[in-house]
C-alpha cells in the first residue's frame, strides 16, 4: 500500500455515499450491499474528502479544527486504507 501524494484530491468513491446518521451518532458510508459505520476520526477525514481539497489541505484543516499537530501520517495511512477498500478515489 503506497502512501498517497499530499497533493492528491481524495473523493468519496463513485456509487458510495457518506452521510451523518443521527440514529447511529456517526458518519456512515453507504454502498449497494451494506454500510460502514465510521468512527469519529474516520468520519472527520472522510467528510473532508470532496475531490477539491488536497490531502495536505485536509490535514491542515483537521489540525486546525482539533487544535492538534502532526496528524499527517495518520491521515495519510487512513486515506491509503480507504483507497484500497474503494471507499475513496482520487480526482485529477
Amino acid at each position, binding site marked *: 500500500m503506497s502512501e498517497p501524494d499530499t497533493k492528491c484530491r481524495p473523493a468519496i468513491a463513485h456509487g458510495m*455515499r457518506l452521510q451523518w446518521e443521527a*440514529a447511529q451518532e456517526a458518519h456512515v458510508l*453507504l454502498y*449497494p*450491499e*451494506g*454500510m*460502514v*459505520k465510521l468512527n469519529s476520526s474516520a468520519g472527520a477525514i472522510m467528510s473532508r474528502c470532496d475531490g477539491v481539497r488536497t490531502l495536505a489541505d485536509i490535514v491542515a484543516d483537521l489540525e486546525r479544527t482539533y487544535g492538534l499537530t502532526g496528524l499527517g501520517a495518520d491521515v495519510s495511512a487512513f486515506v491509503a486504507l480507504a483507497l484500497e477498500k474503494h471507499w475513496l478515489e482520487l480526482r485529477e
Partner: protein
Amino acid sequence: MSTGTPIGHALSAPNAAAAAAAGAPIPAGAARPQPGPPLWLLLELTYRCPLHCVFCYNPTEFARVAAELPTAEWIRVLSEARALGAVQLGLSGGEPLVRDDLETIVAAAHDLGYYINLITSGVGMTEARIKALKAAGLDHIQLSFQDSTREMNDFLSSTRTFELKSQVAALIRAYDYPMVLNVVLHRLNIDHVGEILAMAQALGAQYVELANTQYYGWAWLNREQLLPSRAQLERAEAVTQRFRERVGARMQIYFVVPDYFETRPKACMSGLGSVFLAIAPDGTAMPCHAARMLPGLDLPNVRHAGIRAIWYDSPAFNRFRGESWMKEPCRSCPERSRDFGGCRCQAYLLTGDADNADPVCDLSPHHGLVMAAVARAESAVAAAPRERVLRFRDHRSSIKVVAGEPPGG
C-alpha cells in the same frame, strides 16, 4: 464491517449487509437486549412478476396474498422507518418495475435520505423509466438473472434474454450506474458458470454475484432438483477462480457457496429482529424474507400498526431476539453470539421446529438431514437427470399450493 460480499438480491438473504450494519454482538446470556434500529429496510413492492423462476424465495402461497399497499402507505412506511434510523433501502418484489408508482416511491425515499437499491430483472426497464428513476434519486441498480432453464438457455445462446439484458445493461451504464449482475446458481446451470461469466463480461458487468440458491419458498419445493453436487460446486469455483485471474480487477466476482456444504450456519440477518425489516406487498412486516412460513409467528401488518411498535414491541419481532429461545446445542454453544443459531426458517423447514439449531451446523443432531440431501444430490447428478419435475413460480401453481394440491410440473 462489511465482508465485501454483494448481497441484497431478491433471491438471497442480505446477510453481508446485515452483518456490515450490525453493532456489537449481543452479550452472552442477555435475555432480551434493547434492539438497535432497523437499519436495513426491504420493500417487496409486489409479488407480480413476468418471470417464473424455480428458485424464487417468494412464498409459494403468494396467490393468497391480499392487495398491494397503495403509494401513500409505502411512503408512510418509508417515513416511519427512516425516523427510527433505517437508511439502506432495497426495492424488490416480484418485479418492482411492474409498479407504475416506482418513481414516486424512489423520489420520496431519496428525499428522506435513504440509499436506494433497485433489485430488478430488467423486464420493463426503458430509457424513459431509468431516466425518471435517476432523476428521482435512485442510487443503485442490481440486474438479476431469472429462470434457470428457458431464460438461461436463451442467454447462453445469445438470443432473446441476452438481447434484453444487453439493452438494460447499456442503459445502466449510460445512466452512470455501476453494472451489477446477480446470477442464482443451482444444479441445472452451475456447470455453465464459465459461459455465464463470459456473457456477463460481454454485458460490461463490473460486479457479478454468483449466488447459490438458498432453499426457501419455490426453491425449497424444487430442492431435490436444484441442489448441486460437491463436484459441481468445486468445478464451478475453480472455473470462477481462473476467470478472475484472467480478467483481473475489471470484473469483481463473488461466489456464494450454498450453506448445505458448510459445517457452520450463516449468521442469518445478524439475528432476527436485529437490523433487518422486510415489508411484503400486502404490508406484512417480517424479520426476514421468508419468515412468513414460520408457524405461530403472528406477523404484524403496517396497515394496522406503526413501524416503531412493530419493530420494538410486536411479539413476532421479539420472538427470536436475544438467546432465551435457543435450545441445545445452541444454548450453551460458545459460537451462539456469532451465528445466532443460524437460520430459523431452515431449522423449521428441515426439523419442523424453528427453535432448533440450523441443521447446517454439524453440532446439530439433525445435521444428517443436510448430509442426506447432499448425498441425494450426488447420486442424482451421477445418474444424469432424465426427468425434471420443476415447479415454476407462477400464479396457477401458487393457487394449487394454497388449495393444498401438488403444484405440478
